[in-house]
């Protein structure tokens, strides 16, 4: 029997579940696949509808982790297997090497020593980074990472090691296997943006000036690749016209059949970013339904609607073509009200891609998933956040807090 809880995933939901359970007096392990905590929300510039920064709440949760004697966390880690049952799960975790030690908190010297630049996946490839780096501005843990590619033969690892103080970089670190005995498992593995290249008709990857909503978040962020400016990838100019393509992959029987919950609100939020950036920018939002349910979201939508520069067009974009001026694209939609086709040329098109649960692409052995990739709950296996269903941040907080209770109950029950 075990009195501890495993949380798989250290994003917003996982962190919440972990701190809430730990503050109930239980030992908690967090297994996070990235080198940093916070997951998807660390890539967001602001939350809707308050337009407040995600790092504000993360700072509090990181502090709760730092001060809690009951939380152990592993980064660059993945669950390899789950065996036995509720109250007494055995979980094998593989922890990959970071190639640095905890005192390694400043990468400047090591990063200067290497010339190679690699695409920065945190910024969706909008810029590059060195192989020796800090994952993000407010990375927790605040410890540099050396890319495995630098450690393999011919890599820059040795130069980095030589440039850094002795003991900061350790090229001999190996992947470790950790065996955990836990009573309950909370699955908070979150989501990935739906792969925009899968929608041939929307031409992502074909034209430079079609980006995804998550790329907009990175550009809008002061710590992002463009230091807070939303620009066209082709010429780095601020767009004068922007088109948003809603339900890019969602509510679509060829892609995600369900509604991704957040994309309407995210677009309204991003319209605010753009309008704050520019007085003249014209924004065209192509939608099926604007899903801004509830008082707070409806109020937010009403506020955006008041802006005469934001145009709402009811119609699903069916096709994207090259525009007449350099770099621009034309969005072609069926006007579901007026009939006929609507064409709108824009400097920049944004695909409001939906959320796909991590389970649609990567599954944990021993865990059951439904056909969409969402986790199916089971005795002692408790999904929460976007691993359970597509939801926003505030609902994830509820879901994760509820999951913490379910985990505690599993332990209470078994303890008799």
């Amino acid at each position, binding site marked *: 029997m075990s009195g501890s809880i495993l949380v798989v995933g250290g994003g917003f939901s996982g962190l919440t579940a972990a701190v*809430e359970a730990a503050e109930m007096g239980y030992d908690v392990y967090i297994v996070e696949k990235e080198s940093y905590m916070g997951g998807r929300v660390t890539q967001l510039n602001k939350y809707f509808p308050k337009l407040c920064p995600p790092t504000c709440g993360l700072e509090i949760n990181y502090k709760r982790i730092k001060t809690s004697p009951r939380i152990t966390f592993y980064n660059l880690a993945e669950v390899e297997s789950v065996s036995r049952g509720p109250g007494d799960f055995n979980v094998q975790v593989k922890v990959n090497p970071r190639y640095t030690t905890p005192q390694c908190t400043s990468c400047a010297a090591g990063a200067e020593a290497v010339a190679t630049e690699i695409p920065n996946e945190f910024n969706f490839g909008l810029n590059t980074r060195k192989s020796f780096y800090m994952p993000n501005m407010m990375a927790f843990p605040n410890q540099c990472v050396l890319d495995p590619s630098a450690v393999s033969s011919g890599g820059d690892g040795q130069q980095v090691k030589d440039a850094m103080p002795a003991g900061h970089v350790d090229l001999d670190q190996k992947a470790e296997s950790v065996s955990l005995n836990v009573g309950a498992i909370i699955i908070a593995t979150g989501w990935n943006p739906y792969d925009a290249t899968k929608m041939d008709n929307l031409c992502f990857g074909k034209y430079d000036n079609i980006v995804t909503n998550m790329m907009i978040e990175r550009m809008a962020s002061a710590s992002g690749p463009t230091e807070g400016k939303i620009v066209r990838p082709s010429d780095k100019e601020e767009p004068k016209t922007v088109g948003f393509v809603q339900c890019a992959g969602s509510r679509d029987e060829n892609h995600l*059949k369900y509604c991704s919950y957040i994309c309407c609100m995210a677009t309204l939020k991003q319209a605010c970013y753009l309008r704050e950036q520019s007085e003249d920018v014209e924004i065209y939002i192509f939608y099926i*339904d604007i*899903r801004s349910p509830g008082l707070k979201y409806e109020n937010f939508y009403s506020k955006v609607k008041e802006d005469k520069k934001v145009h709402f067009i009811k119609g699903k974009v069916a096709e994207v073509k090259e525009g007449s001026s350099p770099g621009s694209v034309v969005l072609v939609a069926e006007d579901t009200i007026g009939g006929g086709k609507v064409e709108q040329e824009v400097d920049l098109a944004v695909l409001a891609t939906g959320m796909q649960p991590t389970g649609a692409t990567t599954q944990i052995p021993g865990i059951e998933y439904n056909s969409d990739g969402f986790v199916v709950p089971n005795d002692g296996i408790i999904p929460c956040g976007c691993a359970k269903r597509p939801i926003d*941040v505030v609902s994830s907080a509820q879901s994760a807090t*509820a999951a913490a209770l379910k985990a505690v109950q599993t332990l*209470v029950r078994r303890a008799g």
Partner: protein
Amino acid sequence: MSKKVGLYIYTGDGIAEALDIDKLVEVATGLGLEIVRTHADLYSPEGAAMVKQDIDNEGVDAVVLAGISPRYEFEILDFPDIIVEKASLRELVTWSHPVNADDENADAQKEHVQELAEDYIRMAVVKVQKSEPVEPFKTEEINQRILIIGGGVTGLTAALEAAEAGHESILVERQAELGGWGAKLRKQVPVGPEYSELINPVVQDLIDRVNAGDKITVKTNTEVARIGNAPGDFRVSLKETGSKSEWDAPFPLTDAEMLDESGKELSAEDQKKKYEEKNEGRKDYMEEDSSAEVCGAVILASGWKPYEPAEDEFKHLAWGNPNVITNCQFEEIAKNGKIVRPSDGKEVKSVAFIQSPGGSKDDADFPYASVATSLVSLKQAKYLREDQPEDGKAYVLYEHMRTSGQYEYFYQGLQNDPGIFLTKGDVTEVKDNGSGGLTVNVDNTLIGGDISLDVDLAVLATGMVPTTKDDPVVNLAYRQGPGFRDLDLFGGYCDSNFICFPYETRRTGIYAAGGVRRGMTIEEAMEDAAGATLKALQCLKAIDEGHSVHPRTWDFDYPDFYFQRCTQCKRCTEECPFGALDDDEKGTPKLNPSRCRRCGTCMGACPERIINFKDYSIDIVGSMIKSIEVPDDDEDKLRLLIFACENDAYPALDMAARKGLSWSPLARIIPVRCLGSVNVAWIKDAMSSGMDGALLLGCKFGDDYQCHFVKGSELSEKRMANVAESLASLGIEAERVKMAQVAIDEYDQIPKIINEFMDEIFELGPNPFKGF
């Protein structure tokens, strides 16, 4: 007890190159420290071993680490029972103030930066010397039972969840029966995938399980008269629904009621008289009901009421016509049997479900609508098809179908029914068609422009109004009054305002769930009930361990009042964002530690400076300010004091430093729990010690406030306006004190804010009191 302080200076990360370390050691030695050491890799195991050796062999019992920002945690430098204070030489000094050796002012700049480092060391040393060990607040008896207000789906679920976690509860329901709105449904939307077919209401099963459980006491036809005392030991007076009780919670006088007709504040005696008149027949809020039920924490699950359109509302939709009804009225009819028309009892064959009342002018849903109201229309369309499978016609007329997330599957499932017509459209008019039914005019539809429908019945998808909209419900016997404060910001919902922390209400130990918190479905309400239950149990755990609840969960200390000097000014009781303070007859504050969230707003409010924490006090911060060296004869070396909110502005400074952004080296930064905790005495200390300006960096306030203690930065701005006024009367320019709002991600703005203010200070010139 005096401490033996060891100071350890980190010389890595370029600190040794930027600063004269020998001089720093000299400064520290000058402070009387015997143990002052440097290490190029202080945060490594070797560095930690050096500190550990001094603790073991030299009797060091307080450690100052001068190097990396205090925000970064190094486990190996945590020592049990040893106070560790961290001075940020890397982020706040060297990274943020690089000196280019080729610059013609390089020497002067270097001197500024060196002085900056020296001051941070002085401040850290005095802080550690003045801090006292923290002792947890221990409560002798903590009641583990949960009070649950509301016996609908949310409350029933909460009671079952608490029981499953081993806790007893009292479930209080106003009505004679359990079940709430959930018991008035014919059928309901599923509470989990596949979301295809309607299911029987889950509520009966919940009721059966609650009645079968031995941990739940059900009290129907019962209301909360008042809840007194504090988390861990709430005293709950119950009463029969609708009855009057001497234990009904009294209402404090409103601001307007405290004034006389000419707008002058009434005397204390008159106020008391007026208060007694207002609350005639009710016991004082501090009085204890000996027959009250005792509970440790509260879950507010009082739910919602249907939005009742006013008589003259929605005239264009023929509201007032008996065949135009709300979704709740329709549900009632459907629950009773076949759907019939209210006007004549005829079986209904066709219904228009209207989602949005604004016609072509506004596409918003009805007030207080949510995902639930969209789903209800779809569900009710299905009812009609159940009753009239042959020729029933349901028209769902919407501007935006809001079946978010997986509820989309439910919507998709309906689209194959030939008797259900779903269309976007502007419902411009509903009118009597002269033959007992209604004509519904809809413009801009998807099924062919403007249409006109003849139907038997029209149903308005009106929303769910939270019960807290115009009733305190919890009826707290608190100094600040019976309800939650400022709920009008959230349309009356008992919401927290924090996206990341939705359960953190402004009344510790009371957690809202379900329809009272926001519009939600039954599925969401059940999950929400579990979340709120966790928070309620966790609060009891925190009280048991003697620390605060969110956001300062790790904090074991609590404010200490030196009552001998209290002047009963009531600022602390009025300004506490969490209503933690009550008062006695004379107005002396009474702290309820388990309600307290340790923000220090009371400390900041107190003009007598009698409220302090062991590790955060008027004296500690005042001494830090006084430890700053202020040259009194150098016009280039003005000094700016900055108080920075430790959760937002301070991390932003760290990030600015990491980015290599720079600000004036003349500024000295002190992190504070919240700007609400900044006492004006500190501003006066700064000015009287010759500093030239004070800047407060706090969170955004207003309707979308970001302050985790709700009012900190807002209060601070008011207080600073007052202090500036009183400084002006002493001949110090009011412009020397300023407050700025910054969010944690606005690190790129902070240097500008500091530098511009510094320029303003230079314009003003040195503090006229300098050198006195």
